[in-house]
């Protein structure tokens, strides 16, 4: 058990930032991102300690995180939706200097990204933020590499159009 803990501890250290960022960019709330991230790792740890073989921890954690975000929005769909445009954008960084680094352009991308469709969000986050090669993104999306390239191009185009629309 101690050995399993040690292995999962390393997995946690390696992916906590990525999973948190992935969820935060979809829910735009520090509180909810923390909740869903801890639930992701808790489920991951429970599955791991019960002896389930995890060949690709990253893909495995992202799968849990995606499902949790979908469930979150499904629940929210029945309740009040606070538009990302008007909701206070909770910045998870404490350091004021660090906060200042994000320009209004980046804030705008954050706001637009949260409203993109799920596959567009995923392909952008995984390829441009996590630096995952197209081949790996394709596997995670269960698509061909060609289809993933097309998806990425459409996602970028849609993101750009939405930002341009806001700038007008």
């Amino acid at each position: 058990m101690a050995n399993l803990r040690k292995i999962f501890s390393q997995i946690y250290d390696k992916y906590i930032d990525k999973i948190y960022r992935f969820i935060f960019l979809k829910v735009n709330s520090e509180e909810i991102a923390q909740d869903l991230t801890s639930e992701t790792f808790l489920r991951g740890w429970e599955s791991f300690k019960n002896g389930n073989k995890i060949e690709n921890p990253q893909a495995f954690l992202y799968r849990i995180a995606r499902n949790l975000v979908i469930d979150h929005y499904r629940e929210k769909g029945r309740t009040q939706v606070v538009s990302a445009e008007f909701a206070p954008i909770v910045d998870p960084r404490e350091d004021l200097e660090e906060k200042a680094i994000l320009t209004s352009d980046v804030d705008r991308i954050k706001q637009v990204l949260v409203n993109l469709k799920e596959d567009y969000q995923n392909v952008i986050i995984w390829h441009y933020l996590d630096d995952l090669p197209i081949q790996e993104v394709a596997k995670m999306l269960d698509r061909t590499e060609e289809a993933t390239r097309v998806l990425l191009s459409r996602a970028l185009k849609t993101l750009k159009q939405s930002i341009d629309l806001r700038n007008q």
Partner: protein
Amino acid sequence: MTEKQLIGKIRELRQIKPRKDWVVLTKSQILGEVERERVSVSFFPLWRPALATVTVFGILFISFGFAQSSLPGDFLYPIKKIAEKSQAVFVSEKELPKYNLEIVNKRLDELNEIAQTNQVKKLAPAISEFQANVSEAAKSLAKVKGQDVEKIVEETKKLEENKKKVEDVLATKIETEELDNALSQIVEIQIKDLEERTLTERQEEILAEAQNDFEAGNYSQALEKILILSNP
């Protein structure tokens, strides 16, 4: 903005990171023992496990204490929620609707405090938490049977009062449609059940009042009257 510039800006989102203290705390909550192994103690080796255990439990105990007064958006708030979820495990199915209503009341108290102190940033997460708990309470209310009504009357009444308070401060309506639907079903079943019973004249009057309350959507008042009729 060119595509290259856009990709550059997207990459700046890498600066979004979770708070370090939250990362450490969450890890210790999930894995527990791991953090204990890493506590560096300079005493005699035999003291290490004991001291580390006391330290971990001490920190957890203090954190749980402080977490009780935390609000959505606060660093310690997830601990408060974990404590509530762990408590719910020990609550029997019969008591669960009452427990979930108590939690909804707690969320309303938090919303009230946030609204009173004008902590705008915490408003969105607080509303989200409230709605999630309303959903859970509505689900458990669906399982309420005749004899269990007594258990939920007081909390339902409190909920209506708290809701009114928050609505007054925020000057906006707080939506609890799911909960209202669940309560409406309970009241309707109870009224139908009472209609089939033989009642005294006074009891008939109370039932008529309960029906009026039901039609006006005042479910807690209707439930109070149903309770009087159910326990003569």
